[in-house]
């Protein structure tokens, strides 16, 4: 079943009078439960594509369906709701909310979802334990290492059980051991909960573990390879 589908997706940036075509006609279908990666040289359009899929940005033309729903027609508010309930984000720079503790960062999404206090607390604590941060729940982001912060970000992205997690170079700032552990963790979640993971990466380790590699070049898909299990 297609959880993400794009049709002739085009994204152009207008800089002064120059038009930069970041994506030039992307047709892509991603099924539920995939663990896939967008690869390609710098500037090829990976981040742009992830942003469009996550509803953070709107395409210049073309259409996107998330879980069967066309998102081009959604209002800002509906897009917010879509991101809240269906999509989790992990960024290269972790991007935690600095004034909230690890636990509160994880709780934040569920607060927006109005999940009852008790359930929210329990789930956050257990997700944090799952990503290996037991005992560090009350630390602020500044008091955590990069790897720990990225774990919080992962916990935050998966705690509300989204259908898709979009991760833009999640391991770029981590050493290979930490990155590897984090990938294991995500792979595990992917297998157990059927969460779809879409990465963008330059990291060979990510490419190795991904089940599917979509290669971009100059805003176009030049290769789409599903690895046999």
């Amino acid at each position: 079943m297609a959880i993400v589908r794009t049709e002739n997706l085009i994204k152009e940036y207008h800089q002064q009078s120059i038009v930069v075509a970041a994506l030039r006609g992307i047709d892509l279908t991603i099924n539920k439960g995939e663990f896939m990666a967008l690869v390609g040289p710098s500037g090829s359009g990976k981040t742009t594509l992830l942003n469009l899929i996550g509803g953070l940005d709107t395409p210049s033309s073309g259409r996107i369906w998330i879980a069967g729903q066309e998102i081009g027609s959604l209002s800002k508010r509906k897009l917010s709701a879509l991101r809240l309930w269906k999509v989790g984000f992990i960024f290269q720079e972790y991007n935690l909310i600095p004034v909230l503790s690890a636990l509160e960062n994880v709780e934040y999404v569920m607060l927006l979802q109005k999940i009852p206090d008790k359930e929210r607390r329990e789930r956050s604590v257990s997700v944090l334990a799952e990503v290996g941060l037991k005992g560090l729940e009350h630390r602020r982001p500044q008091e955590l290492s990069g790897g720990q912060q990225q774990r919080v970000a992962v916990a935050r992205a998966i705690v509300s059980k989204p259908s898709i997690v979009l991760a833009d170079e999640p391991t770029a700032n981590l050493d290979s051991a930490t990155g590897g552990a984090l990938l294991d963790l995500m792979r595990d979640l992917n297998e157990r909960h059927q969460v779809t993971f879409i990465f963008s990466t330059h990291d060979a380790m990510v490419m190795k573990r991904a089940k599917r590699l979509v290669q971009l070049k100059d805003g176009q898909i030049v290769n789409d390879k599903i690895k046999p299990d």
Partner: protein
Amino acid sequence: MSLLKLAYRNLWRNKSRSSITLSAITVGLAALIFVWGFIDGMNEQTIENSTTYITGHLKIHKAGFHDDKALYLSMPHDLALQQRINDAPHVVAIAPRVEDKALLSGADEARGVKVIGIDPVLEPSVTTIFKAIKQGRYLQADDGNSIVLGDKLAAKADLKVGDEAVLVTQARDGSLAADRFQVVGLFDSGIDMIDASYVFIPLSAAQELYSLWGQITAWTLRIDNRQMAQDSARQLKNELGAGFDVLDWKQLLPEMVQMIRFHELMSYIVIFIIIVIVAVGVANTILMAVKERTREFGIMLALGTSQLQVIQLVLLESFILGIFGLLLGNVFGLLVTNYFANAGIDLTEFTLAMETMPGLTGSVYPLIRLDRVFFVSIVTLSISVLPALYPAWQVSRLQPVEAIQGVAKNAVHMAWGQTTSARSSTRLVFWRIAFRNIWRNPWRSALTSGATAFGLAAFLFLYAFTDGFFEQMIDNSIDFSIAHVQIEPKGYRDDYSAAYYLSQPDNLLTQVQQNPGVLAASPRIQVEAMISSPTKTEPLILTGVDSDLEPHVTRLDAVIIEGKYLKGNDTTDILLGRKLVDELDLRMGEKIVVTTQLADGSLVSGAYRLFGIYQTGNETFDRMFAYIGLRQAQSLLSMQDRVSTIAIRLQERDLSKITASDLNESMSGTGYEAKSWQDIMPVLVQMIDVTRLMFFVVLAIVFAIVAIGVTNTLIMSVLERTREFGVMLAMGTEPRFIVRMVVYESIVLGFIGIALGTLMGVLLVSYYSEYGVDLSDYSGATSAIPGLTNVVYPMLIFANLWLPTLVLFITGIVAAFYPASRAAQLSPVTALRHA
């Protein structure tokens, strides 16, 4: 690449940050220029009008006349000497005068006026009242008994051009003198004090009236430079010798000088407040702008930039901004001030109040003074550069790594809100984030709430001060003179004359006392009169009171400082104010003569013995009234048992309007009316209004600056957190929650600021309400104000304060909406890409 170029580009790179800083500097400077211009304009106008309409720049008297003003101190009109003075350096023109007081009566009433006998040919080259002639004409060389008077006075005395007026006075030899004059012209200077109290007659007619043949009391002079009046006076004095006094306008108008000093003091206070608030606003913005770029500076340091260069860069940037702010602020400030300097600011609605400020007309024309502009420009430039020093120095000392990592040291570990509350809703989490964001940058928050607090505290104090000021005026006026309500014949208030009376006052008294709000009532007679000692005559208001009833209504009996309060109603005892007694140089028990007019216009005099002296502390009261027994007044004025008014004391001051309208209802058709103290003293009510108006102007400026300060702080803190908002949006936070969060922050900041400001204000007021604010240095200014003494006790009146406080609070919140909605409208992608 030179530092200058780099600084310049940095400013352009972050346009919103730069424009915020710039706007803070610009608005602050423009406000300073305008406020100062307004105050200078007001003072300048007062001096110019007062000196050129009536007084002149210098006056020459026979030695001693200025202190005594007695006619025997006149001097011969020496034409040769006059010519010599005219030829002296700096003297532009000279004119001889005879000046004294008199009673002016028109159809049927008399009132005290200041008479100026002038040479119709010479006078216009010294003073400019001739320019203000509105009807008829100015005096001419061949005029005999002609008179020119102010339109206000004419209206009160019911005189028109062509009518005949009578001047009654005491001549040089002490005899009573009177003469008829034909009204040839009316002037309207726009200054009520002049239009209501001066009359001009030809010099020759004045010499005749006062028996001063060949004599004058003064020469008045115009010189080429008013500022140099003191020097010119000294030079002339040296030349003329000990037989003469030469006085400059500052000595001639000491009350005005004091009033100007008083205004200047007030303006320095207001300007100081504005400077502080502007300084905090600008400092805050610059502080944040530098802090925000810690990382950037870290990279520069890492690349080998020296600490000194970083500091230079920061200073250079704020200097460039400061210079631009200076230009813009000057342009705006000067444009606005210049516009009003030509158009004037119309305050005619408050003419009665302006009357208390001699020399002021209905419009104020702000004055641009380059030295002021220069001063505030320098101040503004310094406050836009100096605050950058601290963060620049701090940043330059950082290890590059620390700077790049965003200074972990800054992490404030907060106990507050750390223990995760049992219950939390979406709203609560935004409150929590808001609170923590405020703590995240404690300096910024402290400065922001500090500015609010300071503005509010200063405002509270000034407000309390004026409230204390007004309360004193009202209470003293009520206690010592007008009581809460008076019943009087219609028309009496325009003309204190025996022609207006209440017949059968006893019936009225009984009727009044049945009103539940009435505590006491007392019948009175009040007419305009003149009091004469052997050497001098002064106008005043003669009041006949019932010595038993009156103390229950007004409390003059409590401020007798010599002798006693009146006993019995039919003695020849008289009670006078301290000031008048000093002026007439009287001693207890001495005889004086009071002259007034009967209802039919004929003059009567009575002789009285000084029995007691009262002192209220206010000069107007202590000079303007004389008290005798009611019977005595009735017989002097042939009024039988009639009285002028019934003065009433109520249970409470605030009942005045209700009680007056109650009484009016019961008296309808009688031709009598009840007037509340507000009706009787419209000056007071208007003064309160005008002061309130001034306060609204000050308040508006303070609020505008506070609002800009709060907005700046929040815009900066929003800019700083652009990325964070991007993340929140990416995670599905609705934009309206982000608006809320930013608004919550401003609510907290505003709340802290207001709590602190109120606390500071209340403490300040409590201190001074205990010890009072001593205005004795400005007694000239305060004496013009009825009821005011030299010490003012500030007073916090909650009813007057909650609104401005609330408005300030709301201003802060409203100011937050701009940055908040800016944050909410961010596209998540742009926000996330924000460096």
